[in-house]
């Protein structure tokens, strides 16, 4: 049997939660769709492909103070940031939820990142299956699916008279306590994402063609902005700097990207990735080679945001295909 919640019941349930906790949901901001705190269910956009920016910023904000330091009694008092706010993240897509789970790899690896852990603990994720994947989507090729419920607490899938509800975790169960769900024999639709990107064997292929001139040719076109990294649900590079104002020092972490000139510049001015080709290669090698080597999964979830946001059409799907082709050629040559 499928458990169903009607659209009206869903909205009143969410409205109830909003009274006690902060609910982030996809909402229209000018001509963008972004995750923002919503005060009423009317503000939520239900029929969106995906948000312009990924929800990773709820766990890894653009800017976050790690700790503050003030002089006290001849010593220095350090106060680490704590996350107190309980958050409900409504409407996260399966690809983005997978992105969060993937980032648990680096952030929860010992020593675990305290802020990431706290955000994770304080957040309950209500997923929303994709009914119609967008043309840029390729989640299935990256090991997920439009209705993949494995990385959320509650999963909703739109059916004719409401939403089919799957309770995945204890956190989800707790949130659903007291909510009346209707039993139904309606089977939720199983949407498919038909774009097939040849990701199998990519680790070997990219290793083989690591030194290929392909990267510097591709970098001809790249303008080395940080758009791809900042819309990406799995890019997590950051910069840290101290900021002192009126005797109080904050250690601040902000988003950064391997595409920035100077991101890898070290003391003395040396930059091991000074040219555009090696910088661009780094992004794809991190996702398709280093990340799987370190944490198992590919560092891409197939959300397609970079595909549509890149100002010069550096398309990861095309790159994966090219890498496979060149890798196979290089492989043959060396045999």
């Amino acid at each position: 049997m499928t458990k169903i919640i009607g659209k009206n019941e869903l909205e009143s349930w969410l409205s109830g939660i909003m009274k006690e906790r902060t609910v982030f949901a996809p909402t229209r901001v000018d001509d963008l769709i972004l995750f923002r705190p919503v005060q009423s269910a009317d503000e939520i956009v239900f029929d969106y492909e995906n948000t312009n920016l990924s929800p990773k910023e709820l766990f890894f904000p653009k800017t976050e103070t790690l700790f503050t330091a003030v002089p006290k009694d001849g010593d220095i008092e350090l106060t680490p940031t704590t996350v107190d706010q309980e958050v409900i993240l409504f409407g996260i897509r399966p690809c983005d939820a997978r992105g969060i789970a993937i980032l648990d790899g680096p952030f929860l690896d010992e020593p675990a990142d305290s802020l990431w852990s706290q955000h994770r603990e304080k957040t309950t994720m209500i997923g929303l299956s994709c009914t119609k994947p967008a043309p840029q989507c390729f989640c299935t090729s990256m090991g997920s699916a439009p209705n993949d419920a494995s990385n959320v607490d509650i999963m909703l899938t739109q059916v004719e008279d409401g939403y089919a509800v799957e309770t995945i975790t204890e956190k989800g169960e707790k949130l659903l306590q007291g909510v009346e769900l209707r039993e139904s024999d309606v089977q939720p639709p199983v949407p498919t994402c038909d774009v097939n990107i040849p990701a199998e064997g990519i680790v070997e292929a990219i290793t083989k063609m690591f030194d290929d001139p392909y990267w510097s040719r591709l970098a001809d076109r790249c303008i080395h902005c940080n758009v791809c990294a900042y819309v990406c649900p799995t890019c997590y590079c950051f910069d840290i700097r101290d900021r002192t104002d009126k005797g109080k020092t904050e250690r601040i972490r902000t988003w950064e990207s391997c595409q920035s000139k100077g991101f890898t510049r070290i003391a003395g001015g040396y930059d091991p990735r000074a040219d555009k080709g090696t910088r661009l290669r780094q992004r794809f090698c991190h996702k398709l080679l280093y990340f799987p080597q370190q944490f198992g999964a590919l560092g891409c979830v197939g959300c397609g945001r970079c595909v549509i946001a890149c100002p010069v059409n550096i398309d990861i799907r095309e790159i994966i295909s090219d890498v496979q082709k060149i890798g196979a050629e290089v492989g043959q040559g060396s045999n």
Partner: protein
Amino acid sequence: MGSDFTQQIRDKAKELLEKGTVECVIGYETGSDGFSARPAFIYEPAEVERLVFDNTCSHNLVKYLLNKKGKPTAVIVKGCDSRSLNLLLSEKQIDRDNIFIIGVVCPGVVEWGWNNRSDQLQIRCNWCRQHNPVIYDFLVGEPVTEGPPDDFADIAAMETKSTEEREAFWREQAEHCVRCYACRQACPGCYCIDCFVEQLDPEWVGIRIAPEENLMWNTIRAFHLAGRCISCNECERVCPVNIPLSLLNRRIEREVLGLFDYRAGMSEDAVAPLITFMKDEKLGIGE
């Protein structure tokens, strides 16, 4: 327009590469959605068939010349792009002898995104008075008569709002900004080796990606382009959160036009008003 322009560009590119006049032709090819354009770098005569020209060719390719210093390169420029080429020549950033300019009389570019194309012209084309390239070695298309002077209606509309409304408007835009620097990276006028925003000593703008710092970033960048912006509006096109940067840039452009009767990039030996001082120059506003 499309196929004929495309053929002329391919023929010229082939000739330049075969003769060895240039090492590379920077033009446009069809992108991964199968219909919209993206920049292309052609090194071999056999590759010229990749080149296309149509109304999605909005990228300003002049920026790429900064990566080709000392290498003979051909570049395709529309009217607006050609002005940025003059800007870089007048600021001695590129060497005219190394550049072969294929100018295209621009039919206008449409609003498009990946896998998404409309018939509506981009806003840059509304104010454009430079469909004909101002500098070229080879021209594609018949020069057209340019329209009457731009009335900056968009700026005038913005000015009907109160100071408070405008402040609220820009604060909200700053809220959206993620400081990805795509605006800077796409801009042919932004070529500082160390951009002020990344300097640490002094630290002109804080590291935080937050409204105060973001406002500072966008404002200073606009001021650095005073009298230099040629309104190709690539900054606005590439912005992932759609900040209407033209409202900043064109406000300053109108000021420069009024004070100095100057439009950036109209000739390769222009003396830009804000980087020069004339003995008999008025000191400006209020005189």
